[in-house]
C-alpha cells in the first residue's frame, strides 16, 4: 500500500502527517464540544441528558472502527507478513478498548436518568460489552508471550477470528434481546436527529477519529523503534558473544 509497509517510509509518513491530525483533532473536538454543550438544543423528551450522546455515540463508532482496523491490519500481517501491519493492530487495540470503555460508562450514565438503571441489557450496550472483552482477550494474548513476534502472530489470528464472529454475536444478541425484552424498559432508541444535534455529533465523530489516528501513529512509531532497539540489542549480544 504505497510503500507504507516499509518501516522507514512509514516513520517519515507518520512524522509528516501526525501534526496535521493533531491539529484537526483540536479544532474538531473543540468546536464539537462548544456546539454540543452550549449551542445546541436540549431534547424535548430527554432534556439535557441528550448531550451525553455527543460522547457516547462517537466512542461507540470508534470502538467498532478500531476493531475493524485491528482485524484488517492483522489479516494483512498474516497474509503478506508486513511487520508494520502487526504494529498497527497492536497499537489500535488499547485505543479501541478505551473508546469501548467510554461508550459503556457513558451509556450507563445516560441510561440511569432515562431508563432508570445503571446497566440495561440493551442489545447495543450488550454487544459493546462483548466487544470490550474481545479487546481484553486480544491484548492479553498479544502480551502473553516472551517473544513479541510470537505474540503478534497469535493475536493477529485471534483478531481475524474475532472479527468474523462479531456479526454473529451482534445477530444473536439482538435476537436474544428482543426475546427477553423486559416490558419496563421503554426502548428509547436513537432519537431522530434534527440537524442542530447532527452537526456537533458529526464534529465529535470525526474529531474522535483524528484523535485515534494521531495516537495510533505515535504508537506504531514506538513499536517500530522498539523492534529496532531489540534488533540492535541482539546484534550487540551476538557481536560481543
Amino acid at each position, binding site marked *: 500500500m504505497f510503500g507504507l509497509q516499509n518501516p522507514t517510509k512509514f516513520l517519515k509518513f507518520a512524522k509528516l502527517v501526525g501534526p496535521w491530525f493533531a491539529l484537526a483533532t483540536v479544532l474538531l473536538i473543540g468546536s464539537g464540544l462548544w456546539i454540543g454543550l452550549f449551542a445546541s438544543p*436540549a431534547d424535548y423528551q430527554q432534556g439535557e441528558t441528550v448531550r451525553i450522546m455527543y460522547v457516547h455515540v462517537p466512542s461507540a463508532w470508534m470502538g467498532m472502527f478500531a476493531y475493524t482496523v485491528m482485524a484488517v491490519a492483522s489479516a494483512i500481517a498474516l497474509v503478506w507478513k508486513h511487520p508494520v501491519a502487526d504494529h498497527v493492530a497492536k497499537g489500535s487495540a488499547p485505543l479501541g478498548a478505551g473508546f469501548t470503555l*467510554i461508550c459503556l*460508562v457513558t451509556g450507563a450514565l445516560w441510561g440511569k436518568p432515562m431508563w432508570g438503571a445503571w446497566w440495561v441489557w440493551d442489545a447495543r450496550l450488550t454487544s459493546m460489552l462483548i466487544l470490550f472483552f474481545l479487546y481484553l482477550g486480544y491484548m492479553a494474548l498479544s502480551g502473553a508471550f516472551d517473544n513479541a513476534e510470537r505474540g503478534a502472530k497469535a493475536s493477529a489470528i485471534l483478531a481475524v477470528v474475532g472479527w468474523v464472529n462479531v456479526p454473529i454475536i451482534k445477530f444473536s444478541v439482538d435476537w436474544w434481546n428482543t426475546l427477553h425484552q423486559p416490558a419496563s424498559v421503554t426502548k428509547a432508541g436513537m432519537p431522530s436527529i434534527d440537524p442542530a444535534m447532527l452537526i456537533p455529533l458529526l464534529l465529535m465523530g470525526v474529531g474522535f477519529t483524528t484523535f485515534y489516528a494521531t495516537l495510533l501513529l505515535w504508537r506504531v512509531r514506538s513499536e517500530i523503534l522498539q523492534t529496532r532497539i531489540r534488533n540492535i540489542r541482539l546484534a550487540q549480544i551476538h557481536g560481543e558473544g
Partner: protein
Amino acid sequence: MSDLFSMGGYASFVWPSYGLAFLVMLALFIDSRLRLKKAEAEFEKLDAVRKAARDQRS
C-alpha cells in the same frame, strides 16, 4: 450561566460522562506520548553507540 451547570437537573450525569471520556482519552494520550518519547530516547542512545563502534572499526 448557573442553569448551564445544572444541565436541567441532570448535571450529575452529563458532566461525569464528559469528565470520564476526557480522562480515558487523556490517559491514552499520555501513554502513547510517553511510550514514543521513551522509545525514541532509547533508540537514539543505542544508535549513537552503534555508530561510534562502527566508526572505530572502520
